[in-house]
């Protein structure tokens, strides 16, 4: 890349005028060093945070007027803990049944949200062998319905996840 003034254009070229060239080599070296460094540290997978509550640690479900509970087993899902209402445990053994059951649960959660606008949080009682992916799926449904974070509890566990504890 050279910077040549119009005055010199007509003159006979006697060689390169080195002093007028922009020396781009340091810039290129910088780029060549920076690009691999940034490529290495760049994150192309969008990872986000999902908050959870635990019993005894002051979760939002603790102070909620509704003890909304979602029971999730390897084969069924259903709501519980709503006064004067009984929800059936819906089959989720096949992907189609799981999808249909989640659609129904989402609708029921929306209804409950409208009926109990002050309710916050839900207790998620999960069977031991339920895959983590399905737990997150249900937590999403609870959060999307406006209930906020879920409180995780293990079903048929020898002890609760966490007893009443102090602060760190």
């Amino acid at each position, binding site marked *: *890349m*050279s910077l040549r003034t119009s005055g010199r254009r007509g003159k006979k*070229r*006697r*060689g*390169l005028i080195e002093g007028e*060239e922009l020396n*781009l*080599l340091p*810039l*290129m070296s910088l*780029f060549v060093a*920076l*690009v691999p460094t*940034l*490529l290495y*540290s*760049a*994150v*192309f*997978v*969008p*990872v*986000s*945070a*999902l*908050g*959870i509550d*635990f019993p005894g*640690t002051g979760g939002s479900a603790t102070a909620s007027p509704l003890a909304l509970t979602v029971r999730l087993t390897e084969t069924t899902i259903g709501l519980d803990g709503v006064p004067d209402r009984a929800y059936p445990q819906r089959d989720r053994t096949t992907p189609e049944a799981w999808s249909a059951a989640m659609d129904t649960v989402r609708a029921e959660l929306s209804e409950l949200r409208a009926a109990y606008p002050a309710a916050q949080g839900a207790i998620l009682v*999960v*069977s*031991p*062998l*339920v*895959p*983590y*992916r399905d*737990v*997150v*799926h249900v*937590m*999403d449904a609870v*959060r*999307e319905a406006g209930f906020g974070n879920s409180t*995780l509890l*293990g079903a048929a*566990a*020898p*002890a609760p*996840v*966490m007893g009443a*504890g102090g*602060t*760190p």
Partner: protein
Amino acid sequence: MSGYLPHTMAMNRRRRAGEEAIAARLQLTSLIDIFTVLLLFLLKSLVVGGAVVTPFPGVTLPPSSSTASFKEAPVLVVTRTDVVVDGVSACATSDVEGSDRLKIAPVEVALTELRAHSERLAEKSANRKFEGKLIVQADETIPFHVLQKIMYTSQTVGFYDITLAVLQK
């Protein structure tokens, strides 16, 4: 940046005619344009403290609609084969799976060391303190009881504020 192209017929002819060699210039402008755009893109994707939000190799995080961001915290990873605390394998996932107790001793030891390390760092820095935060990256296929034991053990050590790392849908 310039170079010479010797041994060409035209050059030889000109040399013979007493003229100087033609300087062949590399046009770097377009390359620098590419580098500049690439650099800006990568700077935008750069995450300081990337270990927090970079999925651990071999771990498939569960998809979620959550878009919340992380606060800086130590990371505990549960892969299909290992439980990794702060980058070091604490025990095998099968050991956690086979345990009939909620508290997993090797994980407890690793987390206790991690807590002690965090507290030592907090003592040295005025604007830093141990807040009991922990980020859990777990493979989507992990059974819930494994996660439950890991979370219970974390809480017994003092990591009360647990956040799950999920893949944004």
